[in-house]
């Protein structure tokens, strides 16, 4: 019973994550502005990867789940920081180009 429930939860999380990743790739294709692309990347890709990692609950394996939780923590910390670094670099480059 609990195994079926975990399967359903994992599959739904996997679906959500893949949808978010697809939105991220689609955003990279459809949007031409740097900041718009960063919007798609930062808001869709990080949570997408986190959802795919969170679907490890369906494996019911302690080592897999703990490593996936570690990965979720790292992605949650690094994804916004790298988005911010890219945005800062783009902004500074724009500013130095205008002078």
């Amino acid at each position, binding site marked *: 019973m609990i195994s079926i429930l975990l*399967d359903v939860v994992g*599959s739904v999380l996997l679906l959500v994550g893949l949808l978010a*990743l697809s939105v991220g790739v689609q955003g990279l294709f459809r949007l031409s502005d740097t900041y718009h692309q960063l919007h798609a990347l930062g808001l869709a890709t990080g949570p997408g990867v986190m959802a795919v990692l969170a679907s490890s609950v369906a494996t019911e394996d302690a080592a897999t789940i703990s490593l996936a939780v*570690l*990965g979720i923590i790292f*992605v949650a910390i690094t994804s916004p920081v790298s988005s911010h670094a890219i945005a800062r670099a783009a902004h500074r480059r724009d500013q130095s180009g205008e002078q």
Partner: protein
Amino acid sequence: MPTAVLVLASAWVTLLLVGGGLALLRAGDVVHRIIALDLLAALVIALLALVAYLRAEPYYLDAAVALGLLSFVATVAVARHIGSGGPVE
């Protein structure tokens, strides 16, 4: 999790990787290329996680975590390089 779901998901992430590679080739600006490479790293992390579930081997997740941290350091380093001309201001 059913194996069919995992295989389908892996195939879909592989398709997304191809799409991300096309976006990388299409990018005309350096910043766009950095964004595309960041996205590719995220997709490879997801693919490694799916392979770990599929083969029931947690070791692939070690590689996923290491790749995530490496891509973070690489992205920040390149962004600093472009934004200010070097890692140190």
